Structures are given as structure tokens and as C-alpha cells.
């Protein structure tokens, strides 16, 4: 007879990220698929799918950050695309103007974006509720204004010719090379975020999200924890921005819109707020819907102008967010969890 239930005999096992042989097996299969993905995509003969995958990986890194700020700590940020933009511009400037290498510019830009996040969050951090959302929204427009006004950032034309990274004499140039670089960084980010949820700081984030008064009663410094959540979230955004700038090699203001911020929030809600896996699943879900709509729009099966395709995308994304909030407020991860629990308990329980 198959064993039922959790079957864990010690605390370390309960705490482990990977706690059973089955999970190791699933992980190995996943690693194999991810490792061979460029070959699979090359087999389809369409190069744009690998580009799509790379942008998806960058988005995952960014949304993991927003998941810390909004999903875990409950601070609604509408300025996440602005933080990505700031990270991208900082990395680009460090490489182009200061002549730093990619490997020096990326961590520096990441850290500086984190500090920008602290500065932005500071006015609103002692206040409850939507003030953070409004402040980050205001930050989005102010950051665009500043980057547009400065000479060094190239105004509306942006910056071009951002160098790509070099690893041991190999210049990362093709989509395939970028895929493996982004995959490694992405996996590290997922691990960092998953570990964060198990740390004292991560639990403090969850506590202030659930009830800040009770959290303060437990001895958590609420404003400080909020600042930390913002700092960590902005770090991920800065990292994603730096990678983006180098991958695209061009950075312009119109690449970062307020819509992106909205989609990032939607991804978190659809995936399941607060869970790292949820953030990843949410990104995949919305990005895949978008890509399907894009393919349909450009294929010529249905006569669509490119504008109309964008409006349809807006409508569908909006509808997806509305449906999830109304009917599955805990997101796709809760659906998966329900299936898993039912499977484990079968034939007992619901």
C-alpha cells in the first residue's frame, strides 16, 4: 500500500526546500528540460521563441523582487517597472560612461537601485495602506522626468551600444548564450527568494503583511521591516534592469511603461501572492497568454492591426486579473496545492 500523508520524521526534513525523492526526481527532470530548452526551441525553427524565453527569464527575476515587496510584505508597488528602468540606466551608464565591465556594473547597479528603493519608500513607510502605491506611482513619473531631462541619459533617445558580458574570453552575444546566463541568474534568484521565506526576515515580511499591529507586538520593527522589503524588492528589479540593458543593448524611456508595473502585480496575484513559485508561475501564465495573442495577431489568420492586437491583449490581461481576484484569490498555486493535497489524501478527505 502506498504511504499517505507527509511522512516527515524530523524538523530539518520539514524545513528542507526539497524534501522527498519524488521532488528530487521532478527537479532533475525540470533541470534537464531547462538545460535542453534552447535545443527544443531551435527544433521548432522559430528564433523568436528563444528571445521570448529570455525576456521571460528577465521578467521572472523582476517579479520575484515585486513578490518580496508586495506578495510577502504586502506593500503595493506601482513603480516596479521604474525600478527596473533605473537599474538598467545605472548599469548602462556605469558601462558606457565609467567604462566598467559588465560584472562590476551589474552588482553596483543592483545595489544602487536597492538604495533608490529605500529613498522612495522612506516617505510612505510609516503610513498604512495605499500611500506606498501612490508614492511609487509618483516615483514612476518623476523618474521618467529626471531621466528625460538629464543630458547624460540621452533624453528621449536613450542609450545605445550597451556592451554584453564576457565570461573567460567568451562574449555572451547570441540568444543561446544569454539563455544560459539568464537561467543561472534566474535559478539563483529563485533560490534566494525561496530561502528568504524561510528566514527570520522573510517571516517578518509575512507577519507585517498579515497584521502589522500583531507583528509589532511580537517585537518586529515594522517600519524597518517595510524598508527591508522595499530594499530587497528593488535589488531584484535593479538586477533585472541591468541584465535587460545589456541583453537588449539599447535602453529608452518608452521601454518601461506603467502598464508593465500593472502586469507585474497581476502576475503575482494570478500566481499566488507571497510564494516564489507563484511568482514564476504567474509570469509564465501572463507571458504565455501574451505570446499566444501576439502570434495570433501577427500570423495573419485573423486580420488584426498591431494596435488592435495590443488592445485585445489589454482586455484579456485585465479580464484574467479580474477573474482571478474574483474567483481564485489565492492564485494558481492554491489550485495546485488543492490538487496535491487531494492526491495525497486520496481516498480520504475531499
Amino acid at each position, binding site marked *: 500500500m502506498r504511504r499517505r500523508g507527509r511522512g516527515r520524521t524530523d524538523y530539518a526534513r520539514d524545513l528542507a526546500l526539497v524534501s522527498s525523492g519524488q521532488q528530487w526526481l521532478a527537479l532533475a527532470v525540470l533541470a534537464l528540460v531547462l538545460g535542453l530548452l534552447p535545443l527544443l526551441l531551435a527544433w521548432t525553427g522559430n528564433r523568436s521563441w528563444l528571445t521570448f524565453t529570455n525576456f521571460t527569464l528577465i521578467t521572472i527575476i523582476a517579479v520575484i523582487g515585486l513578490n518580496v515587496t508586495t506578495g510577502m510584505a504586502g506593500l503595493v508597488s506601482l513603480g516596479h517597472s521604474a525600478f527596473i528602468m533605473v537599474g538598467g540606466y545605472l548599469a548602462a551608464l556605469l558601462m558606457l560612461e565609467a567604462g566598467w565591465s559588465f560584472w562590476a556594473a551589474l552588482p553596483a547597479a543592483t545595489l544602487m537601485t536597492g538604495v533608490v528603493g529605500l529613498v522612495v519608500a522612506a516617505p510612505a513607510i510609516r503610513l*498604512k*495602506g495605499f500611500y506606498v502605491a501612490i508614492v511609487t506611482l509618483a516615483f514612476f513619473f518623476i523618474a521618467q522626468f529626471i531621466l528625460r531631462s538629464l543630458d547624460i541619459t540621452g533624453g528621449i533617445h536613450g542609450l545605445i551600444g550597451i556592451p554584453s558580458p564576457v565570461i573567460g574570453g567568451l562574449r555572451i552575444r547570441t540568444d543561446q548564450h544569454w539563455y544560459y546566463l539568464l537561467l543561472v541568474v534566474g535559478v539563483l534568484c529563485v533560490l534566494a527568494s525561496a530561502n528568504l521565506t524561510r528566514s527570520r526576515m522573510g517571516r517578518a515580511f509575512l507577519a507585517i503583511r498579515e497584521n502589522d499591529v500583531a507583528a509589532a507586538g511580537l517585537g518586529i520593527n515594522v517600519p524597518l521591516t517595510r524598508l527591508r522589503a522595499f530594499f530587497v524588492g528593488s535589488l531584484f528589479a535593479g538586477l533585472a534592469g541591468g541584465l535587460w540593458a545589456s541583453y537588449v543593448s539599447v535602453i529608452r524611456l518608452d521601454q518601461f511603461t506603467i502598464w508593465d508595473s500593472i502586469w507585474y502585480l497581476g502576475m503575482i496575484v494570478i500566481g499566488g501572492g507571497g510564494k516564489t513559485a507563484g511568482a514564476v508561475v504567474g509570469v509564465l501564465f501572463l507571458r504565455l497568454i501574451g505570446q499566444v495573442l501576439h502570434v495570433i495577431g501577427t500570423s495573419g489568420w485573423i486580420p488584426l492591426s498591431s494596435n488592435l492586437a495590443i488592445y485585445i491583449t489589454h*482586455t484579456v490581461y485585465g479580464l484574467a486579473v479580474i477573474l482571478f481576484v474574483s474567483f481564485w484569490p489565492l492564485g494558481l498555486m492554491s489550485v495546485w496545492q488543492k490538487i496535491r493535497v487531494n492526491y495525497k489524501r486520496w481516498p480520504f478527505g475531499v
Partner: protein
Amino acid sequence: MDTVTTLLQLVLSGVLVGSVYGLTAMGFVVAYRNARVFNIAYGQFAVLGAFLAWTFLGSPQSPRLPLAVAVVLTLLAVVAFGLAVERLLFRRMIGRPLFASFVLSLGLLAFLHGVIMIAWGPSTKVLAAAVPTGPLALGDVVVSREFVWSFAIALAATIGFALFFRFTRLGLAMRAAYDNEVAARCLGASASLNSQITWVLSAVIAAVGGILMATVSGVSIGLSELVMVVLAVVLIGGMDSLAGCVLGGLILAVGTNLTGYYLSPLLPGIAGIFSMLLILGVLVIRPTGLLGSRPIERV
């Protein structure tokens, strides 16, 4: 023009526009107070109202329906929209955390944006004048007639609004529900009627604001940026204060006019983010706004 006339001109046109801002912000505050929804899709409500008005009223070159008929039809359509939004979306949000209804309104923002663009397209439409147009000279100061009419309409609507909340049974019930929902229900105030009236009022006010703005700037999706203005107004005035809306609208519009005139030559584009800077300033100095009573709750 001498400096005093210029200043007078800027302030006067600011006051006229500010009254419209103030009125528009009231629709947001009503939804925030009575439905406890931070409705970020509010700008789209205004755009929808303006496009509906354009559909019924037509452009100056090709007017469609007589003014009275168009007004009635637009009003009916907007009321239907308000009821639909309440029944299909926000009624589910009663008792749910603020974050849920906020994300719902984000989804609604994207959805309405897409639907409006599919239905009416991206080009700017000129709205057939519902009010007289042309310049109007008051001494040395010249203002446009549509602004004066907008001011009059906004003033009348604001007063009507104040009277509704102060003297009618329904208005009092809604205010009571804001103070203490359970107690209000025990005293016989209907929660579902409250919710319906709230969203109808919010949608109608948004539409009126959108139409008044559209008589000056034309009907386009760009009107949805009104939500940024509204956010600034409600933060300055106080999230839950209707009088604060009027005050916030005046401060914002006059301030934008003055920065636009005096600072734009030095810093191009500063007038566009003046409202953002004002938001930050208010949050640092007086987070409850000038007339707000209690800080907004946690997400």
C-alpha cells in the same frame, strides 16, 4: 500684459479648472468612503462617460442627437455601467481585504482601457459643444466660456452633492454606513442599496468630470490620466473629505498653472509632474491631507 493681469489670468483659469477637478475627485472619494475601494480605474470611468457622450452627441461638424436626448441617453448608459460594475465586480469585494479590491480595479483599468480602445479607437474626437464656447473678457482677464460653464456645472453639482449627504435620508444612511457599517445596518440602512447608489454616483460623477474636461481637450484615452489628477486632489484634500476635494482641486489647478507659466522655461515638463511632487510633499508633511479625518487603512 502686465504681471498682475498675468497672475490674475493664471489664478482665475486655475480656479475654473480646479472646480472641475474637485467635482471629479468627489466620485473617487464616494467610492472610497462607502465601498472602501481604492478605484484606480476611475480615469477609465471618466473616459467611458466622455466617449458615450460623444457617441450620442456627435462632433461639431456632424451632430447626432439633440442635446437633451443625448444627455438623457448618456446618463442612462452611465447609470447602467455603474450598476453593472457594482453587481458583477465590486459586490464580491465586500468584506475582502483592500488589496483584493485594489487589484480588481487594476484589472478593470486594463480591461476598460482595452475595450474603449477597441470600440472607439485611439484618435481624439471633438465633442459637439454642450455648452457655449468662445472667449469671454472680464476686464483685462480673458477666460473661455466653456470653462465658465464647467465651473457653473461643477459648482451646482458640488452643492447638490453636499445637500444630498446632509439632508436626504439616503445620503445620511450612506454617511452612517461609513462611520459604522454594522450599526447602520441595524438601524435599517440597506447595504446593497448603499453599494449600488455608491457606484452609480461614482460613475455619474466620473462621467460628468470626463465630459467637462473633454469639451476643452477633446475625447481621447488620454483623459484617463485624470486619475492621476484625482489621486493628487484627494491626497491634498484628504481621502475621505468632500470639502477637501474642492480645496485640493483648486490648489492643484492653480499650482499647475503657476508652475507651468513660471517654471517651465527653466525646467521643461515640470508642470506635468507638478501633481506628483505635490503628492510627495503632502505625504511627508501632512499624510491625512488638509481636511481628512483618519488615515487610510492598511492594505
